[in-house]
């Protein structure tokens, strides 16, 4: 480019700020910048003046004060003597719990419903259409309230389990009790408890849990190795060895050994006093929220799955059939890899929506981050500015993490074209 004889630049005139394409965009950007800065300055200035007028400051110190309120469902130890910060963390964990459980379940529901909607079984396809339309066209809040109401109005209270001839009985071999407050499920107990790893801040992990996680991760790696081996054998001899039983063994046998080693067993919940004890009581707020989010998001995912499968043209499966591939193989090797490219990006934005929608937990008294930091803490301390800014920041970070994951995925699976 060195040899280019640049056109004699005309001398700069002020009118070029508007009429010259190079300067014009700069002029415009400068104006926009000034306007935006002015707006930001105005907002900040107003806030400062308002805070001053009220005698308030902007200070996150309240996070270290005693919270003073209890939270029904705490994934990490928490009492009313803990700080607001810890309460917020409990809330965040609760948000994550319901979001992750919701995403997993919604994916299952969505895939099943989406595939069923394409089924050539008229009845099933119609039922799924009804399901999808019902959930997509009615506010989520209503579904949350309805599911919650189903639990509180229809399930028996715990004391209905009392007495010699109780009005209600536990299910699954007397291990699970569905009540109108919570679902009492058994906890896992160990006869040889190996003790816990203390991470500080009263967060502990049982060594047994760690052992299981490690064994599962290890098993997964071994499974992959078996898969790679099968692939190698196939590449060399043409026929693929059957490996499912090896995989199954690798995934289960070590776990079974651990169960035997630690003496792992269920401890069934038992009615004591007002409530079930000894097991784990999963709040109906969580269950209802989870179920409603699952069904609601599942309806959207079903549409995405359906569209994704429809997006792979019929010609693709015909070509595969014409080559002699069986329907199952065709699905695995031809349809799914293509459909997933179409499905996954909108799927992930559904995950994002689900995570954001979990803030409706407030309607069923499930204490997520909106309930703790953005609810009770805000209310007890009167730090609305700080609390809400912090809470939005948390949601924003979660969203950005999810969408960053999505972008990585998108750029990896993009079809190569001319």
């Amino acid at each position, binding site marked *: 480019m060195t040899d280019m004889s640049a056109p004699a630049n005309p001398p700069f005139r002020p009118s070029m700020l508007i009429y010259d394409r190079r300067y014009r965009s700069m002029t415009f950007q400068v104006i926009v910048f000034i306007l935006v800065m002015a707006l930001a300055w105005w907002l900040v200035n107003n806030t400062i003046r308002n805070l001053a007028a009220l005698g308030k400051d902007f200070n996150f110190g309240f996070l270290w004060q005693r919270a003073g309120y209890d939270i029904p469902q705490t994934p990490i130890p928490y009492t009313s003597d803990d700080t607001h910060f810890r309460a917020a963390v409990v809330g965040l964990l609760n948000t994550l719990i319901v979001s992750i459980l919701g995403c997993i379940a919604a994916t299952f529901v969505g895939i099943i419903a989406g595939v069923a909607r394409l089924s050539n079984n008229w009845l099933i396809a119609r039922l799924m259409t009804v399901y999808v339309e019902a959930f997509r066209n009615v506010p989520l809040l209503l579904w949350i309230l309805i599911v919650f109401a189903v639990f509180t109005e229809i399930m028996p209270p715990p004391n209905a389990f009392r007495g010699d001839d109780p009005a209600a009985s536990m299910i699954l071999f007397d291990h699970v009790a569905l009540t109108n407050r919570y679902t009492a499920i058994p906890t896992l107990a160990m006869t040889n408890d190996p003790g816990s790893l203390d991470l500080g801040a009263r967060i502990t992990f049982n060594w047994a849990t760690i052992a299981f996680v490690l064994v599962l991760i290890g098993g997964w790696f071994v499974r992959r190795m078996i898969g790679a081996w099968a692939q190698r054998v196939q590449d060399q001899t043409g026929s693929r060895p059957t490996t499912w039983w090896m995989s199954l063994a690798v995934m289960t046998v070590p776990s079974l050994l651990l169960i035997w080693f630690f003496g792992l067993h269920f401890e069934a919940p038992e009615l004591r006093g007002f409530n079930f004890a000894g097991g784990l009581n999963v709040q109906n707020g969580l269950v209802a929220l989870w179920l409603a989010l699952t069904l609601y998001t599942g309806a959207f995912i079903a549409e995405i799955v359906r569209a994704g499968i429809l997006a792979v043209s019929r010609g693709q499966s015909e070509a595969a*059939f014409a*080559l*002699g591939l069986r329907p199952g193989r065709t699905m695995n090797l031809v349809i799914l890899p293509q459909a997933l490219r179409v499905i996954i990006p909108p799927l992930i934005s559904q995950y994002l929506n689900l995570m954001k929608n979990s803030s409706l937990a407030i309607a069923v008294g499930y204490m997520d981050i909106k309930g703790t930091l953005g609810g009770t803490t805000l209310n007890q301390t009167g730090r609305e500015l700080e609390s809400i800014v912090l809470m939005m920041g948390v949601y924003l970070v979660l969203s950005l993490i999810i969408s960053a994951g999505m972008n990585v995925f998108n750029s990896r699976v993009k079809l*190569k074209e001319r």
Partner: protein
Amino acid sequence: MSDTITRPIDRSHMQVSDEVAIDIRNMNKWYGSFHVLRDIDLTVHRGERIVIAGPSGSGKSTLIRCINRLEEHQSGHIVVDGIELTNDIKNIDKVRSEVGMVFQHFNLFPHLTVLENCTLAPIWVRKVPRRQAEETAMRFLEKVKIPEQASKYPGQLSGGQQQRVAIARSLCMQPKIMLFDEPTSALDPEMIKEVLDTMIELAEEGMTMICVTHEMGFAQAVANRVIFMDQGQIVEQNEPREFFNNPKSERTKLFLSQILGH
């Protein structure tokens, strides 16, 4: 467009044996209550090269799609390579791995490279070791003159190249019979020639072929027989020279005047 076939064709290998490759008897097919194929009788011998022509909607595609059971026929018999096509999955599988098919819109798998497109079926259906499947695939890619594209994705190729990959993909299953459904009609004129050349080469090697096409130059150059269909029936069949110069039925005449006058 008859000028697309330029080079002289070597017909030395193109001999027809007495063995029957495909035998269709009295076959009928309906879509709902619409009678698409009516009383089709057709015998194709090993090594024969048949061109099917006819107006749009006359059932040409449906006919050849019945031959590898992409469509089900409702009455009559179709016997391919000695195997009768019924609802028996094993038979269908056997037939499909003997019969290759090339579609109008190529239907390559866009998520796989050209090489993977070609090795997919041999590996998973024929259980050929990958190495060997790849060698075969490269051989056929060379035959269709695009070995250098093996590691590209279909989306990166031109239409003509894509169709040649589709042909190679079918050939990799080493089928006894090849079906072509208007393989050139979605292509730009320059690319048609590439594909036709490839098909002529196949013909010269004595492959049994059934080809739905309106490329009359191709038909004249390689076909043993031209079949003219209308309204789901075979209206006329004859060897190409006779067919073009001396059509018997009114319909054929009308059709030829439209095609050739164009």
